[in-house]
Each structure stands twice: as structure tokens, then as C-alpha cells.
């Protein structure tokens, strides 16, 4: 963390991820323009903004998921713990084990609940035996606040759970590889209010272990769960700062217009 530019940018605790001058093109479409952000460790950061503003695109840069899109081109510099994640020496597959991701629509694999959670640890060889794997599955499910609901039916298919349970299963699945950062792309948009409340509570608990980045369309949700908020508009990062500050006293007129409901 001895990057000189960092100090002039934000005055805070440790930055987990620093992004400088990040640009993304999908073919001829310039989706993200010159974004600079520091994601703090053990903090929930919310990305808000109208649809198509680039917030999900930026999120997908952080674990190089954009690599799987053939037309995407990412430039600029993104560092995690001082290491450039777009460096040719970095294996994107390894990176994604450290930067977990939860998607908009719950996407459990068509396997048992147990196998869904054990998937990551198995492919990365994290467990040294059946007992250890059982333990990882149990802790992950506990962290995702799902253990009590499914402990008696770990062999049942993950697709048979309710929407909210499925999403928590996906969170448990991501947590099981012990990531350092957890990216969540509108994790509650397919859930009912009760399931949403459970997931939000969970996000707040997860903050104790790693930094969480959440993309959301709900400004109430951003205000409830995050400590820091970034507002994106038309591919630009318009404003980034403490959540309370952004919502009560935005500096940029566009941010104010968005949070008061006049744009977006």
C-alpha cells in the first residue's frame, strides 16, 4: 500500500483494491470511462447508478469475469494488495478463487446442497479429507445463515430450495473458497422483501471477514448495508465517498438528481 497516488485520493484505512484509469469497451461501445476507485478492506462498498451506467461492468473487471466475454477489452490498472490483476503472470482462474462473486439471479448448480458448497473447495484442493470438507461446508453454510434450514437435507438438490435460500446457498458457495473480496451483482433483485432482509443482514456480518462490493438498484439498500457508495452515470464514476455523505450531502448535481429520483 505504498502507492503515492492512493494517499491523495482517499484518507482512510487500508485499500484492498485500487483501480486507476479503467476503461472498458464492448466492441465499439465504450462502456466504462476512466474510473478511479479504492475499495477498502472489511467494508461494504455499494455501486449505484441507472441501468447501463457501467457499475456491473466495473464489478466484473474486479474478478476478470469480462475475460469470458469475447468482445470485451479492459484497459487501465487494477491492483489487489498492490498486485496488478491484469498482469500476464496472474492466472484469472486463481484470482476468481480470491475474489468471489454472487450473481443477480440465484444460480445453484444442479447438484446437491452439499456439492454446491463443496464445489469450490474441491476444485482448488482446499480440504485435506472428507472431514475437513464437511467442516468447510458446515462453516460456509453457517456464515451464509443457511445451515439451520438445510442441515438435515444436505443431499437434496440445491435447485429445490426457495429463491432466497438459493441465493444464500450461492453466497455460501462463494464463501467456501475463503475469498478476500466478495462481489455481489444485484444479489437481491430476484428476491422477496423477507429474503432480501436476510441477505442484507448477512452482508453486514460478512463485512467482518472481507470486503464486499455490491451493485444495487435500490438506494435504500445501498444506504442500509454499505459504508461507502460510488455513483456511476453513463460510464463515468461521478462521485465516491462515505455512504452517509453521498446520500445526505452529494457534491455533484447528477448524484443529487439520481438519489432524489430525477434521473435514472
Amino acid at each position, binding site marked *: 500500500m505504498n502507492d503515492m497516488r492512493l494517499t491523495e485520493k482517499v484518507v482512510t484505512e487500508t485499500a484492498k483494491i485500487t483501480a486507476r484509469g479503467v476503461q472498458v469497451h464492448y466492441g465499439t461501445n465504450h462502456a466504462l470511462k476512466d474510473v478511479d476507485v479504492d475499495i477498502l478492506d472489511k467494508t461494504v462498498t455499494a455501486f449505484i447508478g441507472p441501468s447501463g451506467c457501467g457499475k456491473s461492468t466495473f464489478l466484473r473487471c474486479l*474478478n476478470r469475469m469480462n475475460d469470458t466475454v469475447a468482445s470485451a477489452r479492459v484497459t487501465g490498472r487494477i491492483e489487489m494488495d498492490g498486485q496488478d490483476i491484469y498482469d500476464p503472470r496472474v492466472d484469472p*482462474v486463481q484470482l476468481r478463487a480470491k475474489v468471489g462473486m454472487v450473481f443477480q439471479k440465484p*444460480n445453484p448448480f444442479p447438484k446437491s446442497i452439499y456439492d454446491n458448497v463443496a464445489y469450490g473447495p474441491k476444485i482448488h484442493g482446499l480440504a485435506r479429507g472428507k472431514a475437513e470438507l464437511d467442516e468447510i461446508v458446515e462453516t460456509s453454510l453457517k456464515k451464509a445463515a443457511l445451515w439451520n434450514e438445510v442441515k438435515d437435507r444436505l443431499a437434496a438438490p440445491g435447485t429445490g430450495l426457495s429463491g432466497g435460500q438459493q441465493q444464500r446457498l450461492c453466497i455460501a458457495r462463494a464463501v467456501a*473458497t475463503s475469498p478476500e473480496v466478495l462481489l455481489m451483482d444485484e444479489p437481491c433483485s430476484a428476491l422477496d422483501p423477507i429474503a432480501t432482509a436476510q441477505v442484507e443482514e448477512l452482508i453486514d456480518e460478512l463485512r467482518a471477514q472481507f470486503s464486499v462490493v455490491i451493485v444495487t438498484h435500490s438506494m435504500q439498500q445501498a444506504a442500509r448495508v454499505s459504508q461507502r457508495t460510488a455513483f456511476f452515470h453513463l460510464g463515468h464514476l461521478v462521485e465516491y465517498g462515505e455512504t452517509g455523505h453521498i446520500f445526505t450531502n452529494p457534491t455533484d448535481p447528477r448524484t443529487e438528481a439520481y438519489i432524489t429520483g430525477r434521473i435514472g
Partner: protein
Amino acid sequence: MSLGLLLLLLLALGALGFLAGRQRALAAVRGDARDLHSLPGYYGQTVALFATVPALLLCLVWLVVQPAIVERSISALILPEDITAGSSLVLVMSDVRRIAEGMDALAVAGAASEGEIAALVGQPDALKERLAQTGVALAAPILPHIAEAAQVWRAQTALGGQIMAAAVLALAVAGFLLALWRIAPEFRARNVVERFVRVLLVAASSVAILTTIGIIFSLVFESWHFFQLYPARDFFLSLTWAPKFGGGSDLGLWPLLWGTLYVSFIALLVAVPIGLMAAIYLSEYASPAVRAVAKPAIEVLAGIPSIVYGLFALMTVGPFLRDWFAQPLGLGDSSSSVMTAGVVMGIMLIPYVSSLSDDIINAVPQSLRDGSYGLGATQSETIRQVVFPAALPGIVGAILMAASRAIGETMIVVLGAGAAAKLDLNPFEAMTTVTVKIVSQLTGDTEFASPETLVAFALGLTLFVFTLGLNILALYIVRKYREQYE
């Protein structure tokens, strides 16, 4: 009036109906189409449909029913003494029909006037000669009574044709006028056309279903005949296949069924791994440009006629397998073998497996792949552990469909595997399959009443039950798989 002219008239009436209906609808609202319930074209279509469809149906029914009625009335004219020894009513009737057709041909060619033909009826030998000149050769001498029956036949058929033409045209005109009379601005022509379309579609699917039912019935009926002549127990349990066209044959199913299953098994052994891997490459790894070229290229294999594959088996694969595998390994020296047919059939099945599997793998939601990549899995880990298990039921369905095709395949086996019915484990031996034996039992001059011929139907039925079972299983599995993502 000839049938062609009648149909042409009907079409003309339909076209006229379209124009008249359209015109009348527009006239009813003084040219402002917005006041009509439907677009003007629908009124035209309604009149055209009313004019042509009932008339065509009548025509169709008439064409089916009339010959049956004429045949019955002529049969009544045939006296017992007209049926000579060794003949039967059916054969005599077919003679009557041929003589009548010959007389028609004479009349049409202008070789004889109606008067001359009537005169010829009294002189059977002269009649036979004249008929032979027009290409209708009859073996037995013509009896005068039979020639008269043929004459009656002609008269009745001609009369029937005239009545039909009149009835059909009358119905067409009636439909035309009725539809035209009903046209009013509030007449729901659009809905009428809609109903017609629906009936048409129902009719089309019924044809397919009824044909299937007809095929099954004919198979069951003939198989029933076979089992009257040959004990079912021997057919299903005997291990020997040795048909003798003098009687006393052994017609055991097992050597043929074994050959079928063995060849199909080898074919699937070739087609499934290659087809599946090709499908995985195409759906997961290939760039859109490669896919656009490679997918149609593989599907070209499906367009090659199976007889061409058979030639390939006979000329290339068979000798190759014999020279490089069977003879060096001491397993036989026949170029026709189960292996040859199986390998070539496998190549033929590759596009079935790959194309169906490719569609099924593509149907696995992208979100599952994203989920797996997001956990740090590589592409092949994702395919093996997430995509493939998710697609498995569908892939099994695809394989079963390929299997039922392999079981029904004939040409490749005829040319590749030989015709010897045996129960053997050696894949380099010549063997044969159910389909090949069906062909060989039915070709040549054979009587349709011996068990040696009728066995073909029992074999066909067995095969049908087999593939039907496989297809039902495949459909069931595929459907179950579809429900998973809905």
C-alpha cells in the same frame, strides 16, 4: 369431363370467388375498409374456401368410394363358371379391370371407335389381339361374358365420373353463392379463415398419426398370420435362423437380434464419444466463426445417403479392417464383419449425436457457467462438473435416438456385415441383422402365404416395438430434463 379439367375449374372458381368476395365486401361499405370487421382479403378468402374446399372433399370421397361400388356391382355379374380352375374371383376381377382399361386405351388412342369396341365384345379372340397391340397382354383367352362385364365396368365408371363432375361443380357453385350472400360488414371473415386454417393443420397432423396407426395395424395383422403358421415360442426362443423355401424352416429371432444389437453397440461406441466431444468443442470452445463453418460441415455427414456409407464400408473400411486387424490377429478373413458395419454406422451417427448434444449443451443456462467461473473453475472443470451433468439427461436422450436409428439401419449392414445369421462374439465375423433379413425374406418370387415370407412382418413388429420403446424412453428423459430449467 376429366379430373384435371375439373380441378382446374375448381381453382378458377376459387380465384373468382376471392375477387368477388373482396369486391362485394368493399362495395358493402362503399370502399371504406375500416367499416369492415376484417380486412377485405379475408372476405375474398372466405368465398374462395367455401367454393373449393367442400367440393374438393366431395371429389376426394367420390374417388375413393366409386371404384368400390362399381367393383361390387361387377362382381355380382361374374358367374361361377367364369372362374376357371386355379383362378379366383379376385384374379377374374383384375382381368376385368385390365380389359376395361385396355378398351379405354383403344378408345383414347383412336384405334377403335365405341361401336367397334362393342362389336369386339362378341369376338373374344379379336379383342385379345387388339388389346395386345395397345400393350395390354392377357395370358388366358377372354371369355365373352368377361368382356361384357368389362364393358359394363366402363359404362358405370364413365357414368360415375360424369355424375361426380356435376355434383362437385354444383357444390362448388353453391358454396360460392352461399359465402357471397353471407358477406356483410359485420360478418367475421377473419375468424372463418382462422377456423379453416385450424382444421387444415389438424388434418395434416391427423394424416401423420393415422398413417402410423395404419402401419402398426398392418404389421400386427400380418404378424398374426405368421404366428398362425409358425409357433410364437419357436420364433422368440429358437437360436437358429435357417429359412428353407420348401417348408420346415427354423425361424429363430435371436441370431438376427444379436447381430442388430452387436452392430448398434459398436456404432454407438464410435459415435457417442466422437459426437459428444465434437459437440462440446462446438458449443463451448469454438469461436463463432469456426462454429459457423464446422457445424454445417459435420451436419453434411447426416445428408449422405446410407447406401453411400454402405459402399464406403464395402470398398474401404471392410478390406482395411480385414488386412490390418482381423488377419494379423487371426480373428478371421472376411471383409464383411460386424466391426465394419458398426464403425461405418458409427460415423453416420456422429452428426446425430453431436448436433442434438450441441443444442442441449447450449440450452444449459449461461448463469451456471458464470457461477462456476466465478468460483475460479477452469473451462474444462466447468464443463465436466457443471455443464455436462446439467445436460446429461438430454444427452442420454440424444444417444437413445441415435441408437434407435442404428437399430433400424439396413443398407450399411447389407454391404458391410454380410448376410450370415449367427450368434458369435467375434466382431470380425460376418453377421446379419433383423432389417437385412426382412429385405431378403421379401425379395424374389415368393408366395405371400408362407411363414418364410410372413416372418418379415413379425421381425418388423419386433423391431418397431424395440425402437418405439427406445424413443419413448428418450422423449421421457428429454422432457424431464426440460422441466429442470423452467
